[in-house]
């Protein structure tokens, strides 16, 4: 079997750390997630941070916003690396599901994360 994927969460300030901590609380310690913050980084420094977190492994890069500095830098790195995909708009539901499906092929895992993440967004409340 091939190596399980890892997930690198790249987000503003403490968002990535908080998300990864929340996944661990729900799913346990072995969730294959690494947190990267953009704090204090220009684009080159953030690129190095993501690259170090990936450490040559096949990975999904989960970013908070499409088009922000995190999403942009992750996309620049993934363009050079066939073993990386970027999934934008990360949420907790998406990450918890990923933690249990890290053995899927890269492309399928990325698509799954998008579907799960979208399914986690909705409106609740109000009276019929």
């Amino acid at each position: 079997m091939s190596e399980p994927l890892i997930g690198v969460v790249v987000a503003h300030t403490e968002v990535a750390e908080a998300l990864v901590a929340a996944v661990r609380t729900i799913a346990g310690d072995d969730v294959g997630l690494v947190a990267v913050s953009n704090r204090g980084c220009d684009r080159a420094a953030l690129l190095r941070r993501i690259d170090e977190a990936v450490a040559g492994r096949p990975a999904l890069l989960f970013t908070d916003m499409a088009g922000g500095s995190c999403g942009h830098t992750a996309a620049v790195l993934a363009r050079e690396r066939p073993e990386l995909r970027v999934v934008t708009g990360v949420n907790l539901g998406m990450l918890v599901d990923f933690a249990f499906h890290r053995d899927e092929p890269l492309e399928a895992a990325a698509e799954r994360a998008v579907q799960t993440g979208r399914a986690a967004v909705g409106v609740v409340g109000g009276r019929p």
Partner: protein
Amino acid sequence: MSVVLFRIDDRLIHGQVVVGWGQRLGIGFIVLVDDEVRTNDWEQELYRMGVPPSVEVIFASVAEASARLAEWERDERKGIVLTGDVRTMVALCPAMPAPRRVNVGGIHARDGRTERLRYVYLSPEEETGLRSLAELGTEVTAQDVPTARPVPLAELL
């Protein structure tokens, strides 16, 4: 209206610029002045992703920006002109209309730079560059987001 903000920010187009300044100022266009990005279609697409469709993004080289600044100043919409470094803003300065104001929005840690503010680190060359802007009559302040206090250059260096 016209160009309402000239900003140096090494992250170029990102949340602080689009949301923090863009929403508050009600901007209609952003000019990204960077010789490298100007020639990279793929990277331009990435930058566009971060900007709402109501805001036009113009990619310009330093030479193009210098030539078109007067045109942007006459634009009915409000705009932001953005450079990724001090050097590019210094190059643009002669074409800027008076009164000149430059916002230092983000220059991050790198070897050879000294911390001046949480979001401003400067090399000796960059300090010289900012001083030269001031000597040309430009009001230089550091301010990451509109709600923060603008820090004058004298306090920064």
